[in-house]
């Protein structure tokens, strides 16, 4: 199959399964693009995810970087469209059809009922991203420091990542 179609297939499925703002799709995405299709390496996956967290906008924008590696700018456009269009289309259709959306019970049940599963997927993402990064005292110290700073201060995600970059130059070179 043509690589463009393959990308559309992979990212569209992830798009409509992206509950919780897309936080939960990282492990499956890694499985598909690294282990199954070998489009990028595990370290590239972690680095692209990092860039996705650094730039403004949704993190899942980093699907474009995967597409870029596979097939240049057109690959990036296809990967991004496959990531953003299906979930948006689902949003449009649901808003049109589901007039009973006012049903508070269901809203609550989906939001609260899915929460533990989404959080479980975020924990899995920690292991997924962790596989592709530098290992050793320096890298662990940076990760631990960021975790503490994130929980204890109001520093933003991009600020913490930039700080980690400066720390990386100091200790990981």
């Amino acid at each position, binding site marked *: 199959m043509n690589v463009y179609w393959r990308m559309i297939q992979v990212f569209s499925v992830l798009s409509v*399964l992206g*509950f919780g*703002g897309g*936080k939960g799709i990282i492990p*499956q995405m890694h499985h598909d693009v690294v282990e199954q299709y070998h489009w990028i390496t595990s370290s590239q996956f*972690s*680095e692209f995810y*990092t860039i996705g*967290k*650094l730039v*403004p*906008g*949704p993190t899942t*924008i*980093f699907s474009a*970087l995967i597409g870029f590696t596979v097939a240049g700018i057109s690959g*990036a456009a296809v990967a991004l*469209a496959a990531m*953003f269009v299906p*979930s*948006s289309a*689902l*949003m449009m259709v649901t808003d049109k059809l589901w007039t009973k959306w006012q049903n508070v*019970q269901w*809203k609550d*049940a989906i*939001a*609260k*009922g*899915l*929460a*533990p*599963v*989404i959080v*479980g*997927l*975020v*924990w899995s993402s*920690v*292991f*997924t*991203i*962790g596989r*592709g*990064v530098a290992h050793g005292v320096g*890298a662990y110290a*940076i*990760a631990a420091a*960021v*975790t503490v700073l*994130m929980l204890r201060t109001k520093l933003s995600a991009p600020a*913490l*990542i930039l700080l*980690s*970059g*400066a720390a*990386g*130059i100091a200790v*990981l*070179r």
Partner: protein
Amino acid sequence: MSEDEFMEGLEFAQIMPGPNILNLAVFCGQRVRGIPGAITALVAVSIPAFAIVLIAGALYFRFIGNPFVHAALLGCAAGAVGLTLGNAIELSVDLKKDWLNFVLLAATTAAVTAFHVHLLYVLLVFGALGIWRHRAQKARAQ
């Protein structure tokens, strides 16, 4: 659009799959100008994000060979792991009211990380279980 309609959209955007900001933009576009409005919103959110990430990608491939840039990126990636871990901890604390949440959480993490179960099945089985449990608890409380 009224304040109430916007808040409804925000809730809706958070529940549906996909990035929250994108979903909310699509919702607003659709309520204001129908499907063409929704498509306009989708494009308007995507284009700047696409441009920025492309520039980042171009810089990545141009400078990844430089030892300073490489070290900085290794640091950034380690930071991203820390950030995701912080996120996981923060979200887990929100679930502490009910210990059964942690059973479902641990089962999900194990299924995905140790057994590589596809996300679709994880959502179908554990997701449905979570939603069913929440409904059952609500029914009992009434």
